[in-house]
């Protein structure tokens, strides 16, 4: 919403049509609720990021270093030399427009600078002006621009209105990955201290304490013990997981958000119950206590540094392989980067389920398995006793998280699990799920609260599809396998589709799981009374 500032005599003059200026001539206007706070200097200093200072996007003066243009242009030259993909993506776009209407931020906002092609053009125009002959000679005719403070502000506004979800790249005939262009844009801005507080804070905390929330070992342990009390209330079973145990077969790593943020906490309870029931030889770690990686939203190098603790801890504990919890960007980082950043993990074995004997060849090199793959395999081999009717009060649909679906093709496993633990499941329309899924609108560190209006715009295409199945089939639960989804879709549903809750898939597993020696369940995982069963069905 724009701030109301018109005087009475101006009211009659309000024009309801937008300015007819070209995009290059339309300066960015910073609107409240549309951008995040800037990073705190101490957080940047903690990890060695340069130019930490107090500044705000609304200020005219961003207190940029004197030679900021030189830093950015040199940085761009270095990145172009380092990543062939960046060079390629700067050169090959033919502006066909196939990506233009695929971005959830464009669809929700109607702002043309949110068209992926135009967002990329913000960077390309500067690339042309400084790194191509045609751009240097023909300037505007060749689509070239000078790098000015105005352009920099535009970068900052719009590269933090992209969640790197890669939906646009699915439709690009050249396969241009706009997410990588956003990554480059953010990495360049990072060189002159232009970072978000919501990213800088978690990065510094993760660097110092091992997780985004800055939880120290005793806090992690006691928060998990808190879940154990709830599980005992629910099932009558006392669970005793281990921490930092050397010699365990499996190291379990999950996003720290699930230890404190509802509804992710119920998913964490689901893990604990499942592992106990299986008698799994596993351990939690208070050092490798974060599966997520907000460093990925700053620079490649920072992401690598934060990631290094996972293999290091696996080696220290001497585990055979690593099992990972439900998370989205965590899985893109792990499955596509960890091995080449910090591998080879040749001190571990190819992951093999101790329960079913299944060998996860897909994880032969990185040695880490997603819990959806692990649990789907258990169900496939009839290793779990499940009472689907305990989820009968839930009418479920599944949101494919961008990183797990488009990033690593984890499409069937979560659905297989849901269909085996719930009686009521309905898919959203075809062009809004699987590889074409719509982003939650709050990924890549945009899940702050101060930018709530931006999040609601970006979340609308997803919410619109949920609303459809809510009205048509009575869907009342949006399941997913991502911690950021669990944290942010709750707000999106609250605004766009009241009456639809949000849950991780393993919360549903926890509900349905029949545990040996458990008392009769009268409550669900949230300790709310279970509605009267309509008839139980065991699998």
């Amino acid at each position: 919403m724009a701030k109301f500032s018109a005087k009475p005599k101006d009211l009659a003059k309000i024009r309801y049509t937008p300015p007819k200026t070209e995009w290059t001539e339309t300066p960015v206007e910073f609107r409240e609720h549309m951008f995040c706070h800037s990073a705190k200097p101490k957080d940047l200093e903690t990890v060695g990021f340069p130019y930490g200072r107090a500044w705000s996007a609304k200020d005219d003066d961003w207190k940029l270093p004197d030679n900021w243009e030189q830093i950015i242009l040199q940085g761009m030259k270095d990145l172009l030399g380092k990543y062939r993909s960046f060079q390629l993506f700067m050169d090959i776009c033919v502006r066909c427009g196939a990506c233009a209407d695929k971005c959830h931020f464009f669809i929700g906002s109607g702002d043309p600078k949110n068209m992926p092609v135009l967002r990329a053009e913000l960077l390309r125009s500067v690339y042309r002006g400084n790194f191509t002959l045609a751009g240097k000679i023909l300037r505007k005719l060749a689509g070239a621009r000078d790098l000015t403070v105005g352009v920099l502000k535009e970068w900052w506004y719009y590269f933090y209105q992209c969640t790197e979800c890669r939906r646009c790249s699915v439709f690009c005939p050249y396969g241009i990955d706009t997410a990588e262009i956003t990554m480059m844009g953010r990495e360049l801005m990072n060189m002159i201290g232009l970072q978000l507080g919501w990213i800088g804070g978690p990065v510094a905390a993760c660097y110092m304490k091992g997780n985004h929330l800055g939880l120290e070992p005793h806090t992690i342990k006691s928060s998990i013990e808190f879940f154990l009390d709830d599980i005992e209330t629910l099932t009558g079973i006392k669970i005793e997981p281990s921490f930092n145990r050397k010699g365990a077969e499996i190291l379990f790593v999950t996003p720290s958000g699930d230890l404190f943020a509802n509804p992710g906490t119920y998913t964490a309870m689901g893990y604990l119950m499942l592992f106990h029931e299986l008698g799994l030889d596993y351990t939690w770690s208070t050092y490798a206590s974060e599966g997520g990686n907000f460093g990925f939203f700053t620079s490649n190098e920072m992401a690598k540094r934060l990631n290094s603790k996972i293999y290091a801890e696996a080696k220290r504990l001497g585990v055979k392989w690593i099992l990972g919890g439900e998370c989205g960007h965590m899985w893109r980082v792990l499955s596509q980067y960890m091995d080449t950043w910090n591998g080879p993990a040749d001190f571990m074995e190819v992951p093999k389920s101790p329960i079913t004997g299944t060998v996860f060849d897909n994880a032969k090199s990185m040695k880490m398995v997603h819990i959806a793959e692990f649990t789907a395999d258990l169900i496939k081999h009839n290793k779990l006793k499940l009472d689907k009717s305990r989820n009968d009060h839930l009418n479920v649909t599944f949101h494919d998280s961008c990183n797990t679906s488009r990033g690593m093709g984890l499409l069937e496993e979560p659905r297989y699990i849901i269909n085996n633990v719930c009686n009521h499941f309905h898919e959203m329309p075809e062009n809004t799920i699987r590889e074409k899924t719509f982003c939650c609108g709050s990924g890549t560190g945009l899940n702050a609260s101060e930018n709530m209006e931006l999040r609601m715009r970006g979340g609308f295409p997803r919410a619109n599809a949920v609303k459809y199945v809510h009205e048509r089939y009575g869907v009342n639960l949006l399941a997913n396998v991502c911690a950021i989804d669990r944290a942010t879709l709750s707000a999106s549903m609250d605004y766009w589709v009241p009456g639809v809750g949000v849950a991780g898939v393993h919360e549903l597993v926890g509900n349905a799981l029949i545990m040996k020696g458990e008392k009769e369940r009268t409550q669900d995982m949230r300790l709310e009374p279970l509605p009267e069963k309509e008839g139980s069905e065991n699998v």
Partner: protein
Amino acid sequence: MKLSNLLSEKRPAILERWFDVVLETYPADTKNFLQKQNNQFANPVGHTIHQGMESILNGLLSGSDLQEFSTPLDNIIRIRAVQDIAASQAVAFILSLKKLIREELEKSQRMDSFIKELSLLEDKIDTLVLMSFDIYMQCREKIYDLKANETKRLTYRLLQRANLVCEVEEPGPQQND
């Protein structure tokens, strides 16, 4: 002939012109997309607004009760309340319907014979503007609610763990003195 009958004949033309008024508030490239992409999931903004306007227009011409306008108005205003537009702009499209209807009547040169009915219809449109403004305010207040609720969701377990919050126990059976 009643005014509603005359307008019903002109309904498709009025609706498209009315929709165009809203589209004009978006940049040219966006207008093109909102107008031409027919898939309701690929273009939820265009589809929701068009469908909502159609329901409102039908409701006005068939004399629906005011409460029946709540849902289509909410669907449209909820979107406009989080876009780059001022509050006045978010609800202004409803007023423009009065102008469009008058233009149609002038074309038919029968304005005078419908003046009483027209006045009633315009009163109803004015009421819809007021309803829209209430919805707009609810949406904006909701944005602040979401921020507050999210903070609670993110930290509630932490507060519980630190024994900073507790839930009141169920009251036991009343004891007699």
